């Protein structure tokens, strides 16, 4: 008689027994691992994107000068540095900055213009937000010729992050040539600078930007300026003090963008869990006898459940690691597009390369384990509570299914009711929107088997008795096994239709809106007021110019939200072309009279304003008050916007920069004028553009914004396909007892195979059809609830039936492909195996 085994020993051989199952069913194991790792990959990929973007917002919030008040020139973009010296000598703790844009010459891999800032490291306060640490601080002692003296003295150094150096295609020590003007000083790596930023000494910047003795602004160091003489008493150069723009805005403005990403990531994760749940459930069913044997040999219920749980954790960790590698791949592939859209929409600089954060790995693995446990919960519970000796009673499947369907239907109803009631719980805004969307998806998924059963039942009743009726009845009998995979397919299709409809609607609206909005042919921005005057004079003297339209901007804050106030002059261009969503009668006359203002849809939504109501906001001088004359769409703008008559703007912001203009032509082509202006005034691409170029630029940003959404969509659909495949593969073994009798009645294996395929295609087709109304529901939620909450604008919904047809075909194709392998196996199955079914009834 051997001694009782120790608990560890029991656990070891219990585990060994359990794991032996996976050796015999490698496809099931593959389904489990693929499902879990794909789910983890999509979720962690999205998290990596979010984390990278957030990290760069933090970097931006710390970015150069973003926290310090400034002294800026009035009516000009630059001023003479004598004002700086005078202020320093009067005790002002200011540091000089010269800013500009430089375009690398054509040899650079990325010819995008770069931001150049010239600083004086001696007076720059610690809080200025430039981290100029050398890659290895220990070497930054001047020994390697890269110290402070090398920076401030000719030939100087250009500090740049690794990303920027890659964009230039140059390494440390190389001298970047520019499209025009002198070359930059030799490059030196400063890893913690923002990408796209070049930092040089202020003296070097004056040389590179060909702006001798000129400065852009002065940053005021912390520590207070109380008791100091006012700038106007120190220097004749007019300077005004301005508070830093809220750098934290970036976090808030991009929040909705990231929430959208997160929602998609979570959806993909859940769809992945469907696969895992299906695989685990099946493995449980197949190991039922093994569990009984284990229990009979003395393994306690707790030990069995524990061993199963441990098995799950091990599998989840392995699959999670695979998923993280995949997630990194997904994120790395999508990051350039995310970075581009964040830059385009919010001006946020996100590096194009991904950092690896330890927290991300931990969170991804945790998510994988948690997901696996969630998916395995039911099976574990059943293993724990399974009676040792259960009668293997005959399956009254029809009765069981009816009960199951009733339960599903009730739960779906409950979920739908909760979702509808969400706004009543006090949860509001974007979260409520996403909650309702999730409710809609879940309810639809739960309802799917009920709907399918109804459809199949109806078909069954219509079918001729015999094989036809069996076809439908057997399809219905397969429902429980396939329902999870079909739900995944439904969700993927529904979300695809929903998001596709939203993006399509947006594209149609946006393109049309851009045409109206960019109605003037040419847009330019002068360097200062004097140049602006010279340019307007020059333009007004030209025959083809019908009008030069000022478009001057002041910045304000309303309830903590940044709002741009634009001043414009009355012109037929606006009266005929400017698109308004709602308006008062004679709105343009009332604006010209200075009584009314136009507000953007976002601003109107945020402040709950309608035409006819009053709006007031603090100006530099006095409060600007006006009647809301009209509301206009301002798609893609994270800030609020308001437009008033130029005189009204100047009354409240007398110091506003008078440099931005549009030019309306009398039908003449814009290109010759643009070329002439470039030649006469030396304006670069960033300061002078025709409307076609601007439109193309806006559309490009727009398209990239939705690349990510599209990619996640496609991946989700792929996951649903895998779910279907794994379900079918694992079911095929279980299906034999149902098929063998039909085969025995004389139906050939080939016909059986075709019928199996037909059932699968019918199920997929029905699911696809149900997905269309679901998709439209999702699209409506996105456009009318999520978008409004997230961005403050609403789109007219446009339907794209062709897309639906394409998706239906895709669904059927997915199902067909997924069914192919099991069917191929069935068609080639040795008749002996079918016969064996009768010999060993389960």
């Amino acid at each position: 008689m051997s001694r009782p085994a120790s608990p560890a020993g029991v656990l070891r051989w219990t585990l060994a027994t359990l794991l032996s199952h996976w050796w015999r069913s490698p496809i099931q194991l593959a389904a489990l691992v693929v499902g879990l790792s794909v789910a983890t990959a999509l979720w962690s990929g999205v998290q990596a994107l979010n984390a990278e973007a957030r990290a760069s917002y933090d970097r931006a919030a710390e970015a150069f000068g973003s926290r310090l008040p400034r002294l800026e020139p009035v009516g000009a973009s630059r001023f003479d540095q004598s004002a700086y010296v005078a202020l320093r000598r009067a005790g002002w703790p200011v540091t000089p900055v010269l800013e500009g844009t430089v375009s690398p010459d054509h040899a650079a891999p990325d010819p995008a213009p770069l931001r150049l800032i010239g600083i004086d490291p001696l007076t720059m306060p610690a809080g200025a937000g430039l981290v100029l640490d050398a890659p290895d601080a220990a070497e930054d002692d001047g020994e390697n010729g890269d110290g402070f003296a090398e920076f401030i003295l000719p030939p100087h150094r250009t500090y740049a992050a690794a990303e920027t150096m890659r964009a230039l295609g140059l390494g440390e020590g190389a001298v970047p040539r520019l499209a025009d003007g002198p070359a930059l000083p030799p490059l030196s790596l400063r890893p913690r600078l923002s990408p796209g930023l070049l930092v040089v000494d202020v003296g070097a910047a004056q040389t590179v930007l060909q702006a001798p003795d000129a400065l852009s602004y002065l940053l005021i160091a912390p520590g207070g300026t109380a008791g100091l003489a006012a700038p106007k008493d120190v220097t004749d150069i007019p300077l005004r003090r301005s508070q830093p723009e809220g750098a934290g805005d970036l976090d808030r403005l991009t929040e909705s963008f990231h929430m959208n990403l997160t929602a998609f990531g979570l959806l993909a994760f859940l769809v992945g869990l469907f696969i895992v749940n299906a695989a685990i459930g099946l493995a449980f069913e197949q190991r039922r006898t093994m569990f009984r044997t284990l229990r009979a040999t003395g393994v306690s219920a707790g030990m069995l459940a524990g061993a199963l749980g441990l098995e799950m954790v091990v599998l989840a960790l392995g699959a999670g690691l695979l998923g993280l590698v995949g997630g990194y791949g997904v994120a790395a592939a999508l990051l350039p597009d995310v970075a581009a859209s964040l830059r385009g929409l919010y001006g946020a600089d996100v590096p194009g390369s991904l950092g690896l954060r330890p927290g991300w790995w931990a969170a991804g693995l945790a998510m994988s384990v948690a997901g696996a446990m969630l998916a395995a919960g039911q099976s574990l519970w059943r293993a724990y509570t399974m009676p040792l000796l259960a009668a293997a009673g005959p399956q009254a499947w029809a009765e069981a299914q009816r009960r199951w369907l009733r339960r599903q239907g009730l739960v779906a109803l409950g979920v739908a009711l909760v979702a509808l009631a969400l706004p009543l719980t006090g949860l509001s805004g974007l979260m409520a929107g996403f909650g309702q969307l999730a409710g809609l998806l879940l309810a639809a998924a739960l309802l799917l088997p009920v709907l399918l059963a109804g459809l199949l039942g109806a078909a069954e009743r219509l079918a001729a008795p015999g094989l036809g009726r069996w076809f439908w009845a057997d399809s219905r009998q397969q429902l429980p096994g396939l329902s999870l995979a079909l739900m995944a397919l439904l969700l993927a299709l529904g979300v695809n239709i929903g998001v596709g409809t939203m993006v399509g609607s947006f594209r149609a609206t946006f393109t049309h809106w851009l045409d109206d909005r960019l109605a003037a042919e040419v847009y330019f921005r002068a360097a200062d007021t004097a140049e602006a005057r010279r340019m307007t004079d020059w333009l007004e003297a030209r025959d083809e110019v019908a009008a030069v339209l000022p478009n001057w901007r002041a910045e304000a804050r309303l309830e903590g939200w940044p709002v741009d106030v634009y001043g414009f002059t009355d012109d037929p261009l606006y009266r005929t072309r400017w698109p308004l969503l709602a308006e008062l009668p004679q709105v343009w006359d009332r604006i010209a009279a200075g009584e009314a203002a136009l507000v953007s849809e976002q601003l109107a939504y945020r402040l709950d304003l309608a035409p006819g109501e009053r709006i007031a906001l603090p100006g530099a001088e006095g409060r600007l008050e006006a009647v809301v004359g009209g509301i206009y769409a301002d798609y893609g703008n994270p800030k609020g916007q308001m437009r008033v008559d130029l005189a009204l703007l100047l009354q409240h912001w007398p110091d506003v920069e008078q440099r931005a203009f549009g030019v309306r032509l009398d039908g003449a082509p814009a290109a010759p004028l643009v070329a002439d202006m470039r030649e006469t005034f030396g304006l670069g691409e960033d300061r002078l553009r025709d409307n076609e170029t601007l439109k193309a630029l806006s559309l490009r940003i727009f398209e990239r914004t939705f690349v990510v959404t599209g990619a996640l969509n496609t991946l989700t659909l792929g996951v649903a396909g895998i779910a279907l495949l794994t379900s079918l593969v694992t079911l095929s073994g279980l299906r034999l007892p149902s098929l063998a009798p039909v085969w025995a009645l004389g139906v050939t294996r080939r016909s059986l195979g075709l019928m199996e395929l037909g059932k699968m295609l019918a199920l997929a087709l029905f699911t696809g059809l149900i997905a269309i109304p679901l998709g439209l529901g999702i699209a409506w939620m996105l456009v009318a609830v999520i978008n409004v909450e997230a961005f403050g604008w609403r789109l007219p919904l446009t339907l794209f039936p062709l897309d639906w047809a394409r998706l239906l075909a895709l669904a059927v194709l997915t199902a067909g492909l997924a069914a192919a392998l099991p069917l191929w196996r069935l068609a080639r199955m040795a008749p002996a195996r079918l016969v064996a079914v009768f010999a060993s009834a389960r």
Partner: protein
Amino acid sequence: MRLLAALALVLAAPAALAQGYAGLGAEPQEGYAEVRPDREIRFPEDHGPHPEFRIEWWYVTANLEDAEGRAYGLQWTLFRSALRPASSTGGGGEGWASPQFWMAHAAVTSADQHLSAERFARGGIGQAGVAGVPFSAHLDDWRFESTTPAPDAPFAPLHLSARGEDFAYDLTLATDAPPVLQGEAGYSVKSDLGQASHYYSQPFFEAEGTLVIEGREREVRGRAWMDREWSTQPLAPGQSGWDWFALRFGDDTAVMLYRLRQDDGNHYLTGNWIGRDGRSESLGRNTVSMTPLERTDIDGRAVPTHWRIEIPSRDVTIETVPLNAQSWMDTSFEYWEGPIRFAGSHEGVGYLEMTGY
């Protein structure tokens, strides 16, 4: 003997210490002017800057008292450092490209407080600079300048002002005494290897004005001492720092003493016995002894804040006590500098500076 140099900022501290305090022991660079014994110091021209030399400073310390008899110390320093020889910049040394780098330190010391501040500036754009005639030195709004800015006006009286986050001062310095040449006729040797500087002082300023500490203004008066020194490489390799004394013996006599610490323990001692009439007698290594009596712990550094000084030839045996033993200059480049008083064979007040601890 004020050997602080702005070069400190250029070189990281550990590297600097390895080659003498603040890199001052580094090999001389080609292209700077050389310190020579036959160079005659001339006034008022030499109050002005000497950009052809590598380093230079204008250094004022004062021992002051308020109406209630409370003692204060005050420091105002402007350093100039050429990051490159002025001639090597290839004509591009104008404006921001000027190789001249300026740093200023200011401090106020009372028995229980030591407040300090520092400022930096580039040469070439007017933010900092010095003119000899009429004399004017400034960095930002910190000033040391003749009160009558006319070309033929005398050097003194002078106006001295600076301000930090929690202190400010504004003094007038006046004197009828001539400047005193240190070392041998202003040629001050720093080591047996011949390192030297040009060095003169004005130990006999009468000072009065206002001192504001944490918002409280006080009228103060007392004595101030100015040092002027310029050089190219004043420290020898193996010298790691110094202990420097400015002592006032009554109204007519002053003593400047310093000890350059050598790694080999064979410290270099020298000084001058100074009369109000401008007479100055050099004190050799064997005629002076300086002995630390007590050390003060300042953030883990053992700084000798109490000293015995003996000059047998002048019957001097005194012990010095700091007004505030924690007179640590918490600037980018740290050192100890503060007012002291002494007793023994003679009584009086003065200033102590110690670097390299």
